[in-house]
């Protein structure tokens, strides 16, 4: 419940957005993100709500960290982004360095 996961914003409709998490798209609410968010920005998603816009200069490093965190357990990543099971979704994690 407490591990926020970064995703890239693909579409925005008011406070509702679609974000891409390693190839899996999920809806994300923008109500409490606290910054102006545009398509292409990365946000930290927590239980369906963006809680922070990740500054541009920190995106690459943050993504690398999470890819490594989930590399040996893609199901854990799916669970964190609220996707049900791994049958339908293939996660494109970068894997270990």
């Amino acid at each position, binding site marked *: 419940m407490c591990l926020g996961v970064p995703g890239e914003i693909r579409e925005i409709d008011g406070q509702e957005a679609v974000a891409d998490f390693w190839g899996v798209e999920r809806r994300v609410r923008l109500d409490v993100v606290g910054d102006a968010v545009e398509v292409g920005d990365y946000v930290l998603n927590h239980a369906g709500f963006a*809680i922070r816009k990740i500054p541009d200069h920190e995106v690459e490093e943050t993504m690398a960290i999470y890819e490594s*965190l989930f590399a040996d357990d893609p199901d854990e990543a799916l669970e964190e982004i*609220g996707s049900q099971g791994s049958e339908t979704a293939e996660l494109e994690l970068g894997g270990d360095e």
Partner: protein
Amino acid sequence: MSEDLKFRDPDAAEELAADLEELMDRIDDPVEIMHVCGSHEQVIAKFGLRSMLPEGLSITMGPGCPVCVTDMPEVDEAVALAEDGKVVATYGDMFRVPGTRKSLADAKAAGASVEVVYSASEAVDLAAERDEEVVFFATGFETTAAPTAAILQTGPPENFSVLSAHKYVPPAMEVVAEMPDTDVDGFLAAGHAATITGYGLFEEFVDGYDLPVVVGGFEPIDVLYGLRKLLEFLAEGEDGLANAYPRCVTREGNEAAMDAIREVFDLTAGEWRGIADIPDANFVLSDAYAEYDARERFDIEPVEGDVDPLTEQCLCGDIMAGTTSPEECDLFGDECTPSNPVGACMVSDEGTCKIHLEYGGRPDL
């Protein structure tokens, strides 16, 4: 600083471990660090970080699992509403947490409507789709309280209400710091809660308790780096506050999220399961949002009767206060397992007992 910290870089980890050892030599006394986040415990246990720590340095998990500290009567309220014909929506972690007589999973098995949702907005969607009353049993710390506040601000459907069991961490840290059986030398504070609150709010705690607080992130190197920062304070004989998770946490935090929380919730005293009655640590809906408060809208019958005798043997409270480890509980791994949990610490992915069972427990240092 964080540019140098690459995840799982063994050289960086070893360097940090060597620093910890050197600092412990300088301190020359046992040091106990408490963290208050299930995600920290997962990283620590999963990557065997305790086995890297120098002698005398221990890390204990405190009250950092929101599901675990949700009080049994709060679960009972949700069960009672479900049994009374309301649709109860809640996070998956809450589903199997035992109440006095039943969990929500038990209620569902007996025919009640209980829906697991991934987010607060899914609970609102459910209310829009259904004719019945939908009650969102809302649990978690600041990170999930902010979304609950946000959906109430957007004017949800009339058949939607919230049964709030949201909890606010900082006052619980004070209570644990004051417990006679705890001997905590410093806190590794939870990074994502601090993303919302900002780390500045720990200043008062640091001053009041003369204990260092370092906000830490969730990769192994983050944790080791946070520990080094804490030991640096202790070696200098200082209290102090540091942010070891700057890529997510700022001093001010997420002001939009905090504004939402402040508008929708009031803080009140309440029981944290097994730990204590803690002042100002429970979020309840403010008067302005009383119309969405399930406790105002419905008469909820309190559950009478005795708890399961096994529950009385459960040491979850002591484990969450950091005074006992899961392995010291007679039920751990025998009568109490993730598929048949007695206490909440064995239910949630963030519960100390479940994490210790899953990753083989605490390494013998």
